[in-house]
């Protein structure tokens, strides 16, 4: 590690030092003083679609933000205390590449509630956030030119992740009319029968959509029929309000072709502790572990200790947070309908995804979000930030205190009238 750091440092020094008075150096200064230009696959990925909203929202005092994609709770005390304890005991070394054995065992016990069964020794990998697990899955299973089917709208990281891995993203449009559920018809229409990998994210960010058992059976059937691998990002599984969480991996013939990803950020309000996990057949987890061991080495040790405490001692807190989200969810959906916006019932996560196409200037969700922020100080994320399928919609997060939610809805109502 030290060697590599040094090399980067000295290369940078050499670049700055080269021909200080020459034309090259001037050109370098004009373009920001750097001789770096991003690799093609990095340059090909557009910058984040929410950056500008973030900057405006951060710059204003009176903003009520429904734009936040993380819990407004603090991690349960038992988890924080385990983290502190771990530091006090001086546990500051790496762990095993796959994560500590007791955390993997605790994860295996936990996911049994979703009828998922994985061997903690060979089929579970602890990662630095579920985000790392998603990246590992793409790098481990996507060959250059492979097609990865991505339902849209969906979480913003999948498409860049696929491109960084050299794959070709294929958008599969889900629709408000279907309550944003993924259907075999939508998959066929997009040509996903020819794809190599399908990414599922249910409960979904940004729509809050969940898949019921029949819908998941149908998607599983499509994957078996067309021999697709599946990356199932189930980070919001614990925040399912209507019915039980349905995992594609528990469908017949799906376990062997599915990597399930989950983590601690959403259910346990531990976003900043950066801890997630991937589960799948041994060969899949081996491949992901190979990439992980050469890049991340191991997930943060402190966070792993916290996660064990979270799994063993924080069920009550998770239940309390879930009930609170559920009340806000019902409130938000009711109010959105009262002010005349169409919104499909979000069964999970902490987002509602109302349609604003009919009230937005030229049906443009981005213009609507900009005006809403400027006129009323309400921050929300335009649907197109989540892909073309989000067009004409707005993501509203109810990981927001009830008082703020009420204030935001008052302002939105005024804005619409």
């Amino acid at each position, binding site marked *: 590690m030290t060697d590599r750091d040094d090399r980067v440092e000295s290369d940078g020094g050499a670049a700055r030092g080269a021909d200080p008075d020459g034309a090259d150096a001037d050109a370098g200064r004009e373009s920001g003083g750097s001789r770096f230009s991003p690799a093609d696959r990095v340059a090909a990925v557009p910058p984040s679609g929410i950056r500008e909203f973030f900057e405006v929202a*951060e710059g204003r005092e009176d903003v009520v*933000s429904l*734009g936040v994609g993380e819990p407004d709770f603090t991690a349960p005390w038992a988890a924080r205390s385990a983290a502190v304890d771990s530091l006090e005991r001086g546990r500051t070394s790496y762990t095993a590449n796959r994560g500590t054995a007791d955390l993997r065992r605790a994860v295996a016990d936990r996911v049994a509630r979703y009828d998922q069964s994985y061997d903690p020794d060979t089929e579970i990998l602890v990662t630095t956030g579920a985000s790392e697990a998603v990246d590992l899955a793409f790098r481990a299973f996507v060959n250059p030119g492979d097609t990865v089917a991505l339902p849209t709208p969906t979480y913003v990281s999948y498409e860049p992740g696929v491109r960084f891995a050299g794959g070709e993203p294929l958008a599969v449009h889900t629709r408000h009319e279907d309550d944003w559920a993924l259907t075999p018809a939508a998959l066929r229409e997009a040509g996903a029968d020819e794809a190599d990998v399908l990414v599922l994210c249910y409960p979904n960010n940004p729509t809050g959509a969940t898949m019921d058992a029949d819908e998941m059976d149908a998607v599983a059937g499509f994957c078996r029929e067309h021999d697709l691998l599946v990356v199932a990002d189930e980070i919001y599984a614990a925040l399912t309000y209507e019915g039980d969480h349905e995992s594609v991996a528990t469908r017949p013939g799906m376990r062997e072709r599915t990597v399930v990803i989950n983590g601690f950020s959403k259910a346990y309000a531990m976003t900043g502790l950066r801890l997630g996990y991937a589960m799948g057949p041994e060969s899949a987890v081996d491949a992901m572990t190979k990439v992980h061991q050469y890049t991340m080495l191991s997930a943060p040790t402190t966070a792993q200790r916290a996660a064990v405490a979270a799994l063993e001692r924080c069920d009550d807190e998770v239940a309390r947070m879930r009930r*609170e989200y559920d*009340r806000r969810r*019902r409130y938000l959906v009711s109010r959105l309908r009262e002010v005349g916006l169409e919104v499909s019932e979000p069964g999970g996560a902490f987002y509602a995804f109302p349609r604003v196409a009919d009230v937005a200037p030229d049906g443009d969700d981005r213009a609507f979000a900009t005006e809403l922020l400027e006129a009323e100080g309400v921050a929300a994320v335009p649907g197109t930030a989540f892909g073309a399928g989000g067009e004409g919609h707005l993501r509203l997060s109810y990981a927001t205190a009830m008082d703020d939610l*009420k204030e935001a809805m008052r302002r939105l109502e005024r804005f619409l009238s």
Partner: protein
Amino acid sequence: MDEATRGLIDALVADARESTADLARQTGLDEAAVEEKLSELEAAGALRGYTAVVDWDALGEEHVKAVVEVNVELDRETDYDDVARRIGESPAVDSLRLMSGDYDFAVHVSGDSMGDVSRFVSEQVAPLPAVTRTVTHYVMETYKERGVDFTDRDDDDRLSVTP
């Protein structure tokens, strides 16, 4: 308990001033059903009251709170309920609980001055025949009361827009 009832109670505990309309929105019940449910819970003695959480310091008002530990000795004619009834009669008593451990009753008392509280203890608690001992602890600072944080921490350090 069904989910809607639990949601209703959670909502009221968080904010007892919620309007019927907002309670309906949060629970998925309609307004009439909310009213009916509330009446049922009140009639069953499950919802005992709705009251304000006041930070008297913020009002600049003199207001003294104390926790009084009370030990009692019961006899054939007197049980805990009898003693509780007598102590609980006083408007100075905010809460009254029978405890396990070193003493019997924990009495939360408030008054306009330390004198008020002292008089309550010496005139209305200590003279009761069953009472053998009282220990009065005056409250020096309140940080949280009935779930409401008094410290006004604004600790939302999340970025305002994230994916």
